[in-house]
């Protein structure tokens, strides 16, 4: 439907058959109004244990940014360049922090039973995200293009074959592992992170156990 500039068609806005309207409604309904980026949080969030989720997210941003820089020069340049060595180390240590923060976040959420209050999917997306992150890290170690990567691949192939995944996930194929590491698995991590954050914003941050008992 064509309208003049600044003019909104009533029919276009409310037509339920219009897929753009349905998609917009779906987007708008993902989180309650004002909860996408709230400036204020419940008082119980004022604890260091609630910081580790956003620390994990921050580390993930650094992981992705340093990984993008690494991809600029190919698959071996960090072995022969001081800048490459620095960026490679930056990528490694941001991953170490990512996993450290994520596991402390997991401990905190486990001991406060964070699946309470219709937050089951928030918990499940977090656990799946943890597992996919391990896979992403594993393929990263296989993509180092050094003897360490060869050793890990040789040791890992039997484990992968024993679960029947070796036919389509060959750890002895460095090119396949690199593509899983830089395309498929980061895509999964990104989508799961987005789902996890939307669910946290939709249902709110889980209160501590004693706060719920008192309430």
């Amino acid at each position, binding site marked *: 439907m064509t309208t003049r500039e600044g003019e909104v068609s009533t029919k276009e806005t409310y037509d339920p058959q219009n897929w753009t309207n349905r998609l917009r409604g779906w987007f708008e309904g993902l989180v309650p109004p004002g909860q996408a980026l709230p400036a204020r949080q419940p008082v119980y969030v004022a604890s260091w244990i609630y910081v580790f989720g956003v620390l994990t997210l921050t580390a993930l941003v650094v992981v992705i940014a340093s990984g993008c820089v690494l991809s600029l020069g190919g698959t071996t340049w960090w072995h*022969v360049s001081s800048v490459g060595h620095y960026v490679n180390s930056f990528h490694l240590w941001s991953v170490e922090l990512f996993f450290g923060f994520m596991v402390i976040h997991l401990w905190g959420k486990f001991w406060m039973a964070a699946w309470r209050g219709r937050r089951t999917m928030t918990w499940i997306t977090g656990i799946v995200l943890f597992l996919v992150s391990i896979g992403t890290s594993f393929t990263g170690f296989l993509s180092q293009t050094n003897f360490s990567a060869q050793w890990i691949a040789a040791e890992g192939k039997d484990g992968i074959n024993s679960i029947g995944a070796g036919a389509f996930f060959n750890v002895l194929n460095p090119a396949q592992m690199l593509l899983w590491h830089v395309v498929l698995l980061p895509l999964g991590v990104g989508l799961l992170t987005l789902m996890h954050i939307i669910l946290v914003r939709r249902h709110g941050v889980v209160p501590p156990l004693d706060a719920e008992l008192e309430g």
Partner: protein
Amino acid sequence: MRSLSIVAEGPGKYIHWGVIQISMANLIIIGVMILLFILALVVPFPSHDEPPDEEGEGR
């Protein structure tokens, strides 16, 4: 290149305790993570002296 090879050459120290075998580096990292977890629970979080609003939200 020498500084690069030093990282890979280290055999690493391992702790053997029955069926459990863990590298010293991993043990230290796990210890630091447990320490961070405990500190996150007991160290007070800095907060603004702001009166809570009607909905009971104080930050």
